[in-house]
């Protein structure tokens, strides 16, 4: 493994040919190019019809260079290739090519891959060399829009893998931090990088993640959120099983807790394995505030989760079947408000929930300025007009709005979206069978959650299997002096995080 991970040159973006090859099983082309020697003609033939292909020769020597013009840095090209080789004769060129920046290439397949990853292929006297001149493409580091925090670093990952790796390296100055490069997608050959800290991460998880990514068979990969669905233990489960985040600080804290991290080129999201259900409720914010406040925020999120899942469903259940549960002081208001509504509570609730979801989806797709308008118009339509028109009751508006707001308290967007959809199922069950249906639905959710595993470890850690020390950093955010152990789920060989001085 070290030979794959100890990448000397951080900007050497091309993945190892060995790592790249297993999933390229397009039988015809790959098989033939795998064994063929790298030749200029072969490489040019592969790229025939690509207008962005650059090909140049030098007047005083026999060196031929092939590259993709827009993938490489023109300045580097000039300094590393044009300048030295322009004046060199054959003997000097041979001398120049002995430098370590020129990597000898042995197969046509490797040669084509190198060009695709931003290297320049040099052909000279029957030998082939790759010179990495890849330039950084895409936006530079920016703030993430989906996971903002008030206190704490504001930088977020971007689409550029090199920048993302640099962000992690900059935060964890340790030679034990290892990166394994793999390639996924028969057509796209997207680079996927697994990061872990040697000695902290469990080898079992690293190996398993590596094998799973190796075994992916897909033509194109565009996003980390897409990748994690291909390596899930339970592909048909409803819940996201890998935590995905755009925050480098969060990723670094996962790495130091012994977890394994994956990055995908072209995606600003990184994923973490193994992940538990409760991790989706933690935010880096919790650690940047006093522990009391961090704890209160965590508990608030769990309350938010309960409200999102159950509030509207309880409204439906109570107003349909269990009127006796409402105290008589509240009953008058409720019946007065409900008396104008022509629909049964179930339809009323589904109608309003769907409207809220429509508003949310419309707001998400529109530019911020128009999005605000949608919010205001929607707010007026839902808040005032719907009640006055006798479409819905005031109390339902409160239930629907608070459960929608509560759903946004959950820091992970994927989890929050999953939970919002789950709500509809519970509302339906509550409409059919009242409390019985609601609790039955919750029962199904819990049994489902217990069956989920992430890389073979329990999704419900630390509630089940029970681990008391983990509770200190899951359901509450304990003071740093008490957070002595790393979480149990990653099964780190080095459990002790800090040895407190006495």
């Amino acid at each position, binding site marked *: 493994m070290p030979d794959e991970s100890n990448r000397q040159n951080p900007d050497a973006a091309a993945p190892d040919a060995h790592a790249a090859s297993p999933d390229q099983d397009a039988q015809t082309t790959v098989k033939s190019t795998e064994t063929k020697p790298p030749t200029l003609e072969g490489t040019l033939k592969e790229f025939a019809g690509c207008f962005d292909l650059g090909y140049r020769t030098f007047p005083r020597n026999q060196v031929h260079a092939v590259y993709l013009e827009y993938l490489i840095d023109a300045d580097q090209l000039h300094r590393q290739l044009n300048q030295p080789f322009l004046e060199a004769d054959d003997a000097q060129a041979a001398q120049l090519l002995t430098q370590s920046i020129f990597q000898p290439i042995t197969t046509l397949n490797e040669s084509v891959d190198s060009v695709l990853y931003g290297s320049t292929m040099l052909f000279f006297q029957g030998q082939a060399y790759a010179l990495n001149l890849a330039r950084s493409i895409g936006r530079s580091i920016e703030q993430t829009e989906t996971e903002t925090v008030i206190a704490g670093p504001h930088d977020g990952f971007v689409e550029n893998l090199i920048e993302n790796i640099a962000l992690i390296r900059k935060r964890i100055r340790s030679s034990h931090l290892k990166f394994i490069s793999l390639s996924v997608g028969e057509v796209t050959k997207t680079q996927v990088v697994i990061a872990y800290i040697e000695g902290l991460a469990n080898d079992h998880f690293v190996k398993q993640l590596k094998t799973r990514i190796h075994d992916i068979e897909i033509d194109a990969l565009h996003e980390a959120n897409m990748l994690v669905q291909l390596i899930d233990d339970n592909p048909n489960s409803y819940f996201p099983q890998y935590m995905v985040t755009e925050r480098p600080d969060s990723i670094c804290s996962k790495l130091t807790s012994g977890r394994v991290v994956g990055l995908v080129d072209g995606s600003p999201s990184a994923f973490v394995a193994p992940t538990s259900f409760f991790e989706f409720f933690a935010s880096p914010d919790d650690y940047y505030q006093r522990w009391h406040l961090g704890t209160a925020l965590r508990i608030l999120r769990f309350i938010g989760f309960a409200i999102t899942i159950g509030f509207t469903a309880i409204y439906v259940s109570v107003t349909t*079947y*269990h009127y*006796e*549960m*409402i*105290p008589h002081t*509240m009953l008058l208001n409720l019946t007065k408000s409900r008396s104008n509504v022509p629909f049964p509570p179930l339809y009323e609730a589904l109608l309003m929930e769907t409207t809220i979801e429509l508003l949310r989806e419309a707001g998400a797709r529109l530019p911020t300025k128009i999005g605000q308008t949608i919010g205001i118009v929607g707010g007026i339509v839902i808040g005032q007009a719907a009640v006055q028109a006798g479409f819905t009751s005031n109390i339902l508006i409160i239930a629907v709005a608070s459960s929608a707001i509560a759903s946004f308290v959950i820091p992970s967007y994927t989890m929050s979206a999953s939970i919002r959809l789950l709500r509809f199922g519970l509302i339906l069950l509550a409409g059919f*069978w*009242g*409390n*019985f249906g*609601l*609790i*039955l639905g919750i*029962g*199904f959710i*819990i*049994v*489902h*959650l*217990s*069956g989920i595993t992430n890389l073979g470890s*329990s999704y*419900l850690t630390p*509630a*089940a*299997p*029970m681990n008391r020390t983990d509770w200190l950093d899951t359901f509450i955010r304990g003071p740093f002096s008490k957070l002595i152990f790393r979480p149990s789920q990653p099964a780190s060989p080095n459990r002790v995080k800090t040895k407190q001085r006495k």
Partner: protein
Amino acid sequence: MQEKLHGYHIALIVYMLELDVTVFSLPRIVAENLGTNGWIGLILLAFVAVCNIALIQLVYRAGKGRSIYEIAEQSIPKLLLYPVYLLLAIFWIGLGSFIGKKYVLIYQMISFPTTSASLLYISIALLAYYMLTKGIYNMGKAITLFCYMTIILTVLLFYYTNDWELSRFTTYLFQGAAEGHSFKNWLEVYTIFVGYEITLFLFPYSDKKTLFKGVYCGQILNLTIYLILIMLCFGFFSFEQLKSIMYPVINLLSYIELPFLNRLENLVFTLFLFSNVISIALFSWMALTATQRVFPRVKLRFLELGILALSVGISFYPSILRDSEKLLRYAMYGEAGLAFMLPLLLLALLFFQNKKAGGNGGTPA
């Protein structure tokens, strides 16, 4: 490698299996059968249950942690055993379905008088089936979460602080039992502890070190919760009142009036759906382990489906609450007997097996 259940989860499994629909009538059963201060009798009965667990522990030690099926099959021909396995499986599936049916019938009585009880039963049987398909380890995880959700309800206890009076306990011991004292009456109370015998089947699936610690803890947790509940009822209702209320715990809950919620029994009784589903699922799981021995080649999924079908089929039989209670009571007697008989039989078998092997240690007694 198969993950092993830790003692903590075993404690909760035992606790949740023992806790079932009977808990809602428990204070009445205790008052009727044991009389005044029946809670002391409950402690005595719990001691009997602990002795039974100790017997199971002896089986575990003498059999060196082997599964009970392996122990039995070593001495008794399989042809003789298979019908017994099947009978036991049917009995357990029946027991689970009687528990579920009784719960559903009570639910129908308090909330859904017009909904078909069979439909409600099928829905909870489906949940139990879903649980069964996850395997015992994942069932343990689900049970842990269900347990947290129900055990939190003990905070409601503090609502009764002002209405609870010690004087209602009286100074008499075991007086006023409805039919006097008899073995049958004490046995009826004893059946509330039925469930710990699942330990026999957990041998291969649990962590060696913590298994019995877990079982004892589960039993003690169960006793504690029962005692709290019974003492609450004995101090809240008068003794005669307690004897005449069918489900005192439901009455107890309907007394609660929170500022934003009344008639809590609607919600709390529904939450107890979990403990009943767990009972169905765990008894079905016991049946599954037995049927697996008989049909080792049949796919697990088919056996599970068969158990579900049988469970639903049996549940059609009791159609009114009185029938269902009677059936459940008899099934519970049978199960309580089985809980004693099985370890004794196994110990006898092990005694001969070890003797045959040269008696080199591990013999019971």
